[in-house]
């Protein structure tokens, strides 16, 4: 192997750092809470949340559940024009369980 030495440039692009944000405080418990269930279009998403809902209903009989489906792959609910519907749904829940199906 020839020992010619190369000084090489980086192919890796710079990216502006994204200022990190924290997450929201959690409720003390789920009794009486309104739980949002958000599924995407992947096949396992809806049945996974059905199981989650059933299990939580058993454990927290006073909890209520509200579903939202984002069925457009790789597009947020907001990006596809569902902002008002999505935000209205969010206002009606205390916490959300998302299932992505893969």
């Amino acid at each position, binding site marked *: 192997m020839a020992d010619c030495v190369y000084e090489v440039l980086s192919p*890796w692009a710079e990216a502006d*750092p994204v200022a990190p944000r*924290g997450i929201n405080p959690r409720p003390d418990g789920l009794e009486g809470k309104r739980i949002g269930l958000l599924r995407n279009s992947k096949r396992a998403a809806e049945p996974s949340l059905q199981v989650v809902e059933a299990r939580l209903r058993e454990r927290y009989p006073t909890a209520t559940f509200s579903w939202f489906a984002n069925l457009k792959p*790789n597009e947020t609910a907001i990006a596809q024009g569902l902002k008002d519907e999505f935000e209205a749904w969010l206002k009606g*829940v205390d916490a959300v*369980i998302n299932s992505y199906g893969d």
Partner: protein
Amino acid sequence: MYDAVDIEDRGKPTVSLVNTGFANDAESASRAKGIPVLRVLPTAVPCESSIMGDIEAGVDGVMADIIAALTKPLTAEEKSPRPAQPEKPARIIFKGNLEEVNRFFYRRGWTDGLPIIPPTEAAVAEMLAGTDLPPDHLLGKLQSRDGKATIEKIAVNAVMAGCLPTYLPVLIAGTINLLESEPGFLGYTTFGFSTGSWAPFWIINGPVRNQINLNSGSGAFSPGNIANAAIGRAMGLIIKNIGGVRKGIEDMGVMGNPMKYTMVIAENEEESPWEPLHVEMGFKKEDSTIRLSFPQTYLQHWPYGSDAGRILVSVVDSMPRGMRYNIVLTPAHARNLAREGYSKEKVKQYIVENKTMPAASLRAQASGGLAFARVNVDSLPKEGVVPVISDSRFINVIVGGGPGAFIAQLVGGGATPGKKEIQKIDLPKNWDKLVAKYKNVVPTYAKY
């Protein structure tokens, strides 16, 4: 994951369930969107499972964790995550011999697994002769990490791939195609990274084809032509190193796709009886363009005869299900079709009218949650066949390939008709000189 970020941004606590194999992808997505501490639970629910027992077992395995994720108080880091150290990548990143440079790049995950040409200052400067744009000119930020697509970074990746400077205008136009691709399901946002292992397929039209010796003839999709090989390879490296799309983290292609090494063809405009693709799409014949789609599948088939009827029946019979279709017909077949009165549009119409599938199969697909089926199941007949392509604009016909009878089909994904899929290639002022300098870089096979 982005919906979960939107939910946290609107003040509600979330937990997200993902398959264990997607944990890295979920972490990358949440970090990229500024919430690196998003609560994500990897589960044993098999990907896209339709087996209820497996789903129940997977969910039951994390039920206690789901409840904890929704109720457990936040840690200090979750309340206020520390900012990531800003990247300060050195411009000169390494010094070593050929083997050492290759090992260094490979270990960083910056190659496609094949050896690279060291992108030295001199080699990159030579590559930059292919554009009038300054090295720091920013075309945009490429997903998924919003990497800055500067001309210099494109040139560095072009050198690595073995490109000649005459390919740089094509790569710049290709990168613009990616940057301006429609967001969402039918654009690069999906096809660049998705489980479907979609591969960028680049069709080049106009005078630039012959000026840079792109192959549109015999074995156009085979290795052996530097332009076809290096342009697709460079675009793959641009997606990896500028877009930050890493296999198994952002690129979650289940099977992967050898077409991701390179899939580039020029249309054989000279031997086509029809208008070239770019003219169909509104450009002038003297323009040069690069057109992008994202097939999953490349197949070849033999026509039942060389007359229009038997060519077209074989095309329809061989066509797999997809969202977008590219048909590559040989010049001989194209001429035969044209002689029998078929324009490109008439070929497409034939396919739309004749590509059918059993209604029962379509119903099964739709009921199985196939997102792109987009079928009203209730409207399907109980028996018989139904058309599966609703719009001739989902089909693209070009002329290419050499002597012989085979037909190629590249089927998969691509843009919504009317959305971004083709970009004009802008050439530098010194183009003629540059072409003259590199035009003779062609293989000359020894006789034996």
